[in-house]
């Protein structure tokens, strides 16, 4: 998915985990994904660099679709579709 397409996504759920370091964002993502339905999109905001690698790995294990990451200044947005 291109950056333009990612930016245009209207997520069904927004998780702001910028206030926590590893493993905070991962735990926040796990908690939040239980609150959306299969096929819905979740957007995770994180300032923890490790999370960029962690979320796709977690998503693969859990059967969610990792859509991509958009860089912002000082943080980034990760998009997932619940499997």
């Amino acid at each position, binding site marked *: 998915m291109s950056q333009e397409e990612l930016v245009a996504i209207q997520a069904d759920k927004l998780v702001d985990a910028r206030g*926590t*370091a590893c493993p905070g964002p*991962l*735990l926040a993502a*796990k908690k939040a994904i239980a609150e959306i339905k299969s096929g819905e999109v979740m957007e995770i905001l994180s300032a923890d660099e490790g999370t960029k690698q962690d979320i796709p790995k*977690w998503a693969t294990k859990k059967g969610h679709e990792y859509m991509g990451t958009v860089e912002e200044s000082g943080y980034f947005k990760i998009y997932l579709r619940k499997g």
Partner: protein
Amino acid sequence: MEEKILELERRIKRLEATKKKDQLSMVVFSGELDKLLAAMIIATGATAMDMEVKLFFTFWAISALRDKEKRTQKKELTSKMFGAMLPKGTSEVKLSKMNMGGAGLAMLKSLMKKKNVASLDDLLQTAGELGVEINICEMSMNLMGFSKDEMIDYPGLNYCGVGTYLADAEESAMQLFI
């Protein structure tokens, strides 16, 4: 044909019996803040990966599970002395490197705050909420001069021996020693 199916069924049953669970079994042996942080970050992270987590606290690590506020009735003098010399709870554990009489420890703690890294207390609380099981080795707890009544209030706290750890570890897909 029927015999073949039966044989296959038997083989599947045997394989299922030996299949490892999506479970992390960890020996937490070290009693220093850095190592305990690593253990608890891995433990809580593993729950996010939907793994069952079982921690086996033994020797120096048990110090961190003591509740500073709780008083205990100790009988033996040597146990009392040993217990008094060891850290009482998360606020008293030191660093394994660069502790520098507490200066390094204070620096690390302030850096952790600045970088939004959860404290050991926070991690223990999160672990409890996420269902991380903590098993305390009863033999080493007694050896260190600690008793059950001075341990923290933790939802999944049990006391056991090495057999429990081995049984847990045997069925876990992942084992660690920290």
